């Protein structure tokens, strides 16, 4: 059976529940990247992110009836499952320090920026990105989640509030504190606090 790209998630899920592997694979491919990015950005660990995403889809496979289409989208449901797994992981390993992770082919975990700059510039960029990643990982979980959703996933405040299941004011507040901590960390990482320049 040929699956149409625009086939709705709930239709695909029903087919998957009946044993249609292609439908399940289609669902997986549609949602895995966003879930993986979120898990990776939250945990900073590719192995953990991989496990978390796998767990989320295993949950869907084992008990597809857990998803109630009247309560929201399948993407939202999967995000909720992934978020729970992330929180459990972070509770279990509150201060897990990510190792230098490699892909299966031995390259870095991230995508190499397509840039025509010199190797020195690229190295500097890479270092900066690593510093920011470390600063994000330093944030307490709830502030990190707000920063990941609003700054990295580029969700609106409303979408983030819906995803987390809290009022929009809570997201604003967490983001405010997360930003303050992040800026403080970045200032520290730049070899001590920098004097703020006043631009008139």
């Amino acid at each position: 059976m040929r699956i149409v790209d625009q086939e709705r998630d709930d239709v695909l899920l029903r087919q998957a529940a009946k044993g249609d592997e292609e439908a399940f694979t289609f669902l997986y491919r549609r949602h895995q990247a966003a879930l993986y990015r979120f898990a990776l950005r939250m945990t900073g660990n590719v192995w953990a992110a991989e496990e978390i995403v796998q767990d989320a889809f295993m949950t869907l496979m084992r008990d597809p009836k857990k998803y109630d289409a009247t309560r929201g989208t399948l993407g939202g449901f999967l995000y909720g499952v992934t978020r729970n797994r992330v929180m459990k992981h972070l509770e279990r390993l509150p201060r897990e320090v990510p190792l230098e992770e490699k892909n299966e082919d031995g390259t870095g975990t991230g995508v190499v920026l397509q840039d025509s700059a010199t190797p020195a510039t690229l190295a500097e960029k890479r270092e900066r990105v690593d510093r920011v990643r470390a600063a994000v990982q330093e944030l307490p979980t709830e502030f990190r989640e707000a920063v990941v959703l609003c700054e990295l996933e580029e969700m609106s405040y409303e979408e983030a509030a819906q995803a987390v299941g809290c009022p929009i004011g809570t997201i604003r507040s967490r983001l405010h504190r997360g930003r303050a901590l992040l800026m403080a960390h970045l200032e520290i990482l730049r070899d001590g606090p920098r004097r703020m320049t006043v631009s008139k």
Partner: protein
Amino acid sequence: MKCEEFEMLGLDGGRDASVSETERAAAADHANSCARCAALLASWQEARAELRALAEESAAAQTPARVEMRLRQEFRTRHSTFKGRRAAVAAAWALAAAAVLIGAVSWLNWRHSQQVARVKQSNSTVTSDNVPSKSDSAAPDAGTAGFNVDDDSVILVADNESSRFTLLPGVQPSDIDDAEILRVRMQRSALGAFGLPVNEDLANEWIQVDLLVGDDGSPQAVRLLQQQ
């Protein structure tokens, strides 16, 4: 707008749908007039640019292919197991249903054969004993007395209990050795035909009696049944 408010609303008011245009304008005015908040805004914009770089770096991150492979393998295993289990359950139910069906059919057959055997047995007993038919039983004597053998009331008593029978006049006890019992319905007055005394007041009453019928079909003895 105060500095605290600016920190909450001014840094990213553009994306916060709950911030009104007036508040955004007030935040912009505040940033222009407050050096601290302007520095904060500049610092945040710098940090944000770095966050953008981080976001871009991991924007195309994908779950490794092995995860999809593992999930598909698990999916196949799960569904083939499920199908197998379903087939086994269906087979078990089918076997159970077949067993019940066979049992029911066997029981019906057995019951039917029992009934047939019983009917055959009773038929053979009736024919072999030369039981007088309805017309035959209306013998000259009995006919006048309203002697009536009712088909429904003909009951062949299996026992050979010959007690409480009154021998009809002229019958020797040895004559009834091979006699069969025949239950008949007759008027009480018909007892007179057998040489028995009859209460004239109840002469027309219908009664049931057992007759001991000899080999020649003639009654040898009579027994009155108690009325219920």
